[in-house]
Every structure is written in C-alpha cells, then in structure tokens.
C-alpha cells in the first residue's frame, strides 16, 4: 500500500503520441497523447481513449521523446515567407478564369 506523496512510487510512464487512421486510404491524424508503460499498453489505451465511437481502423503510437520538432520560436526565419509568392497558387492566374476545364 502506498500513501500519497510517496515519491518512491511516482509514475514515470512514458508519454506516447497517438495517431488514428479513420478509414483505409486516409492519413493517420494526431489524436492526442497518453501515458503507458510500453507500446503494447499504449496501443490498447489509445483504443479505449480515442476510438470509443468507431473513430478509427488503425492506430499508431510513437514515443513522444522520439519526435523531433521545429523550433516554434523560429517559425519566421525557418518557414519561407509566402509574401509576394501568390503565383504559387492557382487563384493567381485570373486571365484564365473564363476558360473551361482549367
């Protein structure tokens, strides 16, 4: 039996990121995260936590510590500015508007 505040029993389960594929042919989409002692339990917990209403046909779990992320503070310099590059979008080409099937 443990008592609250007993740091000897403190949970240190790993954090897992959960990705769910809602049906075949679609991408896995991040659903959330959970804690679990191993990958097998993580998949089972993910099923119970994120697919109670048929939200998915398949689950990925990934240790959160295995994810490498871009620096959110550097998004200005890291991501190319879309400013002045409207020509990358189809809507930029207005002269073709009346042309069918284009």
């Amino acid at each position, binding site marked *: 039996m443990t008592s609250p505040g007993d740091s000897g029993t403190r949970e*240190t389960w790993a954090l897992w990121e959960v990705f769910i594929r809602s049906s075949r042919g679609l991408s896995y989409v991040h659903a959330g*995260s959970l804690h679990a002692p191993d*990958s097998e339990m993580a998949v089972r917990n993910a099923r119970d936590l994120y697919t109670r209403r048929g939200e998915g046909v398949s689950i990925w779990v990934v240790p*959160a*510590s295995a994810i490498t992320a871009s620096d959110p503070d550097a998004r200005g310099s890291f991501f190319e500015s879309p400013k002045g590059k409207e020509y990358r979008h189809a809507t930029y080409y207005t002269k073709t508007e009346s042309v069918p099937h284009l």
Partner: protein
Amino acid sequence: MNPVTEQAEIRSDNDTAGQRRFDELLANEDRVEPTDWMPAGYRKTLIRQISQHAHSEIIGMQPEGNWITRAPSLKRKAILMAKVQDEAGHGLYLYSAAQTLGIDRETMFEQLITGAARYSSIFNYTTPTWADMGSIGWLVDGAAICNQVPLCRCSYGPYGRAMVRICKEESFHQRQGFEILLELMNGTGAQRAMAQESVNRWYAPALMMFGPPDEDSPNSQQSMAWNIKRFGNDELRQRFVDMLVPQAEILGITLPDPAIAWNEDRGHYDFGELDWDEFREVLAGRGQANAVRVARRRRAHEDGAWVREAARSYADRRANETGELAS
C-alpha cells in the same frame, strides 16, 4: 521526455518580448501553445481550472457508478457504463492538457485525494433514485455543455482541443438523461412523482454550476481578458434557463422556481434568486457527499497501486529483453 512536445519548459516570467508576443496572440484571437511564453498567472489559472475540470470528470463517475448495478434494464446499464467510461476518458484528456503546463499527473492526483484541489460541487450531491440519472444527464450535463462549448475557443490550445472532443461526446449524455425523464414522465404516477422529485433537487444546484454572480466572481474578468472564459457566469446561466423552460414543458415537468416567467422586455426568462449560502457550504466541504467522494477516490487510487506497479515492472522487464524504450 522531449520538452518540445509536451512538458513545456517554464521560462522566465520577466520576458518583455514574450509578453508582447502573448498579447499579440490574444489580440488576434490566436491560440497559445505549450511552448509559447505565457505569464505565470495565466499558467497558474489554467492549471487550476483544467485540473479542477479533470477532477470533476473523475469524481463525476461516482454518482452514476452508484446506479450501474441497479439500472432498470440491460440497455440502460450499457448506456450508463458508456457514459461513465466517457467521463474517465474526459478526465484523461484534461489531465493531459494540464500536464502541458508543467504539472505532473501524480501531483494532480494527490491534490485531489488530499482535498487540496477542488472539483465541481455538483458531485457532492447524492443520487438516491433512478430518476437522478435522468436529472444528471438533462440538468448537470446540460449545464456543463453550456459552460464547455465556449471553452472550445479558449485561448490555450490543448484545453480548447480537449474541449472539442469532450463536447462532441457530451451531447449523448444530455439526451440520454432527457430520455430517462421522458420515459418516467410517460409512466405511472409513481414514476412521474419520482422524476419530479429528482428535478426538484437538481434544478438549483445545476444552475449554481455556472458559479457565483459576476459581481462575486473576482477571477472571471481576468479569465475573460485572457480569452479563457468567453462569457460571464450570469450570461451562461441565463442562456441555460432559456433552454430549460421549453424542454421542461416537453417533459411535462415543473421547474421548482415559481419566479420563472417570460420577460418580454429582456427577451429572456426571469428566474428566482439562488441559495448561495448552500453553494458556499458545499464548496467548503459540508455537502451531502464530499467526504465519501474523496475517500472513495483515494481508496481506488491506493487499491490500484499494485496494478500500476505490475505494469511498470512488466514494461521494465520487456524493455530489458527487447531494448524497447520504456520511459
């Protein structure tokens, strides 16, 4: 653990560039994410609110769990189990959201079972009759939905996202409660009386779930400025009463407040004063079931220690065997 994905590094509070960026995000109705700089007060408020919310979901399983074994049919039993399971899930979404602010789950569990943290006072009322399962769904979950829908737009990203998921699931909770009462109201005289008696008990406490009147709710204004809260307590309460009155008519049930009357000028229903002394009493721990709720939660946590320990040592052993990452 990777600081980028979950446990945000807590940076210095005296960060003028951070403050500017934070103010900008709020002004643009943008979301704050765990890795963004945020004022210490914002973080603290959110930890308190989200963890209380999580605790409410976890404690909220008890009043209904009370009826699972005695539900009147297999269908109702299955529905009630699904609902209680949802509540466990909602608690987990919310604990995860709170953890992104830098508090660990064990600390939150401890705060709950030692009484250091609060949960919604509504769960300190007992559920002596089956009709209470109806009243909880219709009135308690109804009030919760009213409160929670605006929280989907809360400025803190992880909280808003958790709320979207929760609100989606919560609508079944309210409907099944309404249906329980509707069936009782279409039943025998004794069943109708049971439904009415239950609504008589739950109506006022459900209205108090929105919190004290705005003038007695000192933290509300700051929460509104931070885009955590979107509407005042009184406005949400009014919105709820306006929804309840026509629903009560469909049920054929009487809301236990003789002051309820349509006010043409305001375009809303008037309703009577609530007993805020009772609210404060329950909040102070002197409700019907405060002690029982916390004691039961503590026992469940302590009784589950061996399961957590077993899972942990199994995972450790497997990690040694397979080289799989364990923590």
